[in-house]
């Protein structure tokens, strides 16, 4: 997380200064929205809808509580996909940049937005996305920075909701036309990753807090300040709770996840990934002062297990990020996958992916809840590929490890020998050093936050991965380019690679930013760095179809839904949402 934010932050600063230099004297008084907002008709989303989502809708960032990014729709399948056609490209008024940029970097976010000017467009905002020539490669990261859609869209009753920085849009999911457009005074983080819906309310990380919008009109209902840096991760709803992560990307204070009442916005509980003195896990830190440097931010929306009433999610890295010398110990519960009781916030179990991290390996991937057979026995598991270059499967009722496997043989930050718990054991020679230690995965990680997918149909877990290196110094690391990427299908029961598709493009380092969608039609949708949306046979890895996207490759989460019985696949790409259906 950090590395990406830091470099982009530097670029952002330059552009901000440039923008300031050309700023007119007074900012516009109201958000410069030019098209009239229309009222949209969507049925309120009930707790039951969220637990058993209809195939026609896509109601959460992950599509369902399982975190699987799997659609049960079958109309577009391995045969019919050959006829898949572009149905529409979204038609919206341009996105506006915020006066500030939320909590992307430490406490700076809150201060930067203190003015709270409405619709500070044209001031020191994020730059508009540079149009990318079709099919061009080497266009930089597809991570949704600098004005690209990083969101996972929400679809309800034929209306598609998404964010782009401080903008929230509702568009007609059948033709891509704008229905309403809301401009917040600031966006959470550098890349707003989308919305949550509960009842008739849309939740957004914006305005230095949690913002509730009327789903029908996009009008603001309330804003609750969160008292800390606001990241861009999508909020998450279970029954009448809405969960939000609060925290920075460079240590200033402990990060946390909190539960709020979805109607009133009142806080219900807070859970800190880094324990305080006297609490369980504090003995993995030397002192309160060191633990208090913070981080462990849960950047990615959780998965939810209704049977156990558990929120399951990953936590980020500790601080200082690349220099662990002052914080000997495992630094729990940073870089863990944890399970919290959804009503009380009490931790049920944890599993640490990277103990004592000093490589920025935050474990904030999308967690897939699956039921699989392991050695003949049915197991309820959570499975994911971590940024640290390991694939994990753990029992989600106990946190007990089932699989830990290196995704590349040259992953070298850890020893070959695992701990009894299944956690990799650090190779202490591979921490940051003054002269530099050459480590794989590098500072960009083997994966980042974009969506991974599990298909209950194939029983395989899918993600885009990059095999790379960085030299790590106490004072930071270096981003080396030129590494190839591949799409991986992994058996979560064994960690064995079922198939992989290796991309030839030599500068694939940024290609892991493409999220993955699988469907019951036997398909896998994802993007390559060359700007193509590709449909693979999820079972074999064979390419069945592709389309060159109008601006860039995938920047947000691909989703699937139906309107009037027709299945659509919609993908955020740079400043547009592009949708496909059969003729």
């Amino acid at each position, binding site marked *: 997380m950090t590395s990406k934010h830091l470099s982009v932050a530097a670029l952002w600063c330059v552009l901000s200064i440039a923008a300031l230099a050309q700023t007119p004297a007074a900012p516009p008084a109201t958000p410069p929205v030019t098209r009239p907002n229309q009222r949209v008709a969507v049925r309120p989303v009930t707790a039951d809808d969220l637990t058993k989502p209809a195939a026609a809708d896509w109601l959460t960032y992950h599509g369902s509580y399982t975190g699987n990014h799997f659609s049960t729709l079958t109309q577009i399948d391995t045969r019919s996909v050959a006829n898949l056609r572009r149905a529409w490209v979204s038609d919206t008024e341009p996105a506006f940049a915020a006066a500030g940029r939320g909590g992307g970097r430490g406490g700076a976010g809150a201060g930067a937005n203190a003015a709270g000017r409405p619709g500070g467009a044209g001031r020191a905002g994020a730059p508009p996305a540079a149009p990318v020539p079709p099919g061009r490669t*080497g266009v930089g990261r597809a991570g949704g920075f600098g004005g690209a859609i990083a969101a996972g869209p929400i679809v309800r009753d034929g209306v598609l909701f998404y964010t782009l920085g401080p903008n929230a849009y509702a568009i007609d999911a059948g033709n891509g036309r704008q229905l309403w457009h809301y401009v917040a005074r600031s966006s959470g983080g550098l890349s707003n990753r989308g919305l949550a819906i509960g009842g008739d309310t849309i939740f957004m990380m914006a305005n230095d807090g949690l913002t509730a919008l009327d789903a029908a009109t996009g009008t603001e209902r309330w804003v609750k300040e969160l008292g800390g840096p606001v990241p861009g991760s999508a909020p998450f709803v279970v029954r009448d709770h809405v969960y939000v992560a609060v925290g920075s990307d460079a240590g200033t204070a402990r990060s946390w996840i909190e539960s709020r009442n979805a109607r009133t916005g009142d806080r219900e509980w807070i859970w800190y990934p880094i324990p305080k003195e006297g609490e369980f896990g504090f003995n*993995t830190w*030397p002192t309160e002062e060191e633990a208090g440097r913070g981080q462990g931010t849960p950047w990615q929306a959780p998965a939810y297990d209704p049977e156990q009433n558990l929120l399951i999610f990953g936590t980020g890295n500790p601080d200082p990020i690349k220099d662990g010398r002052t914080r000997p110990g495992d630094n729990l519960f940073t870089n863990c996958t944890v399970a919290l009781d959804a009503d009380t916030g009490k931790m049920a179990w944890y599993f640490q992916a990277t103990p004592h991290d000093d490589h920025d390996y935050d474990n904030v991937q999308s967690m897939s809840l699956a039921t699989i057979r392991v050695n003949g026995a049915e197991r309820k598991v959570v499975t994911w590929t971590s940024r640290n270059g390991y694939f994990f499967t753990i029992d989600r009722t106990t946190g007990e490890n089932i699989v830990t496997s290196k995704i590349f043989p040259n992953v070298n930050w850890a020893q070959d020998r695992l701990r009894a718990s299944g956690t990799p054991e650090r190779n202490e020679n591979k921490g940051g050093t003054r002269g530099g230690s050459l480590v794989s995965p590098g500072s960009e990680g083997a994966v980042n936050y974009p969506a991974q997918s599990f298909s209950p149909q194939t029983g395989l877990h899918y993600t885009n991965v990059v095999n790379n290196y960085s030299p790590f110094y106490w004072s930071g690391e270096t981003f080396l380019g030129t590494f190839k990427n591949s799409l991986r299908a992994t058996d979560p029961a064994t960690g064995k690679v079922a198939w992989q598709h290796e991309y030839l493009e030599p500068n694939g380092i940024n290609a892991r930013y493409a999220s993955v969608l699988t469907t019951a039609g036997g398909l896998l949708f994802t993007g390559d760095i060359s700007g193509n949306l590709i449909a693979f046979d999820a079972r074999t890895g064979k390419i069945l179809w592709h389309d060159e996207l109008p601006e860039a490759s995938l920047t947000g989460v691909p989703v699937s839904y139906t309107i009037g019985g027709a299945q659509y696949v919609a993908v955020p790409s740079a400043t547009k949402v592009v949708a496909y259906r059969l003729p």
Partner: protein
Amino acid sequence: MHKRLGVAVFIGSWAIATVFAAAQGGPQGAGESLPSGITALAPSPPAGAPPDPAAVARGTVLYETTLACAPCHGLTGRGGPANAPDLTRSALAVQLDGGRALTAFLRIGRPEKGMPPVTTPLTDQQAADLSAKLRALGFAAVPAPVAGRGAGGRGGGPPLPAALAGQQLSILVGDPKLGKRYFEEPFYQCSSCHSVKDGETRPAANLAHIATKYADPKALQNAMLINRGLNWSPRTNKDVTATITYANGRTVKGYLTSVSDFKVVIQNDDGKETELPRKDDEPKVVLTDRLQYHLDLLARYLDSDMHDLTAYLATLK
């Protein structure tokens, strides 16, 4: 001040506890473990007197060539990218017994870790020579107090109390003499492509003044590893050549601009681009990267060797 002191004392006792636990050979608690493959830590420097240089010289041949220890454990014995143990910290490796325990260990090896057994038994003389070599590596690994280098020394040193301590110090921690050797010797083969003599032409860049071009040692080290940033793309230079072969045997060659599963774009010497469609992995595209050797080296560098090479390059002003 009190807080600072507290941290230092804590870290100190933690380190001592780790070494103590190791010396006892007892079970290790979470977060306190020995480096991979080492069952007991060696004292630093090793016990006893430094070994006889003549025995070390003979042992060097065994270590680097006959038994091929160096490819995994490194020329300095400090471990490697595939997590081969740091022999300078292995009590077994530096034991003062003329190599008896070592011989017994080598007869079995660690096949489960990829270390094959030494099948031809070592003579007593060979065992003693190899032992002398490993002990010499142990002595060499002790950080020498060098003016202006701080407490870091080679490959790190003890933890420093302040979070940011050492960050202002130069990253030059290596030995330029060793670096010169690695540059010239077959293990890294730098000199087979690069010359360090003014005006001499070799296939790759002349490095005679490389430390002037990269005055910052960190930039120098990074350029040595792979001289490409995150946003490098083959379209930006002529580093990558594409050989495109059709099923009928027709072959097209050019500098790569971009390649996907659906098309490959190449350019000729004048920068004129040609776009060729692809489908179902046809035509085949084979890429030749001018810096492939540097990419392959990333998996082979030992950190200490990387430091030594950088230290050597830093002398080429």
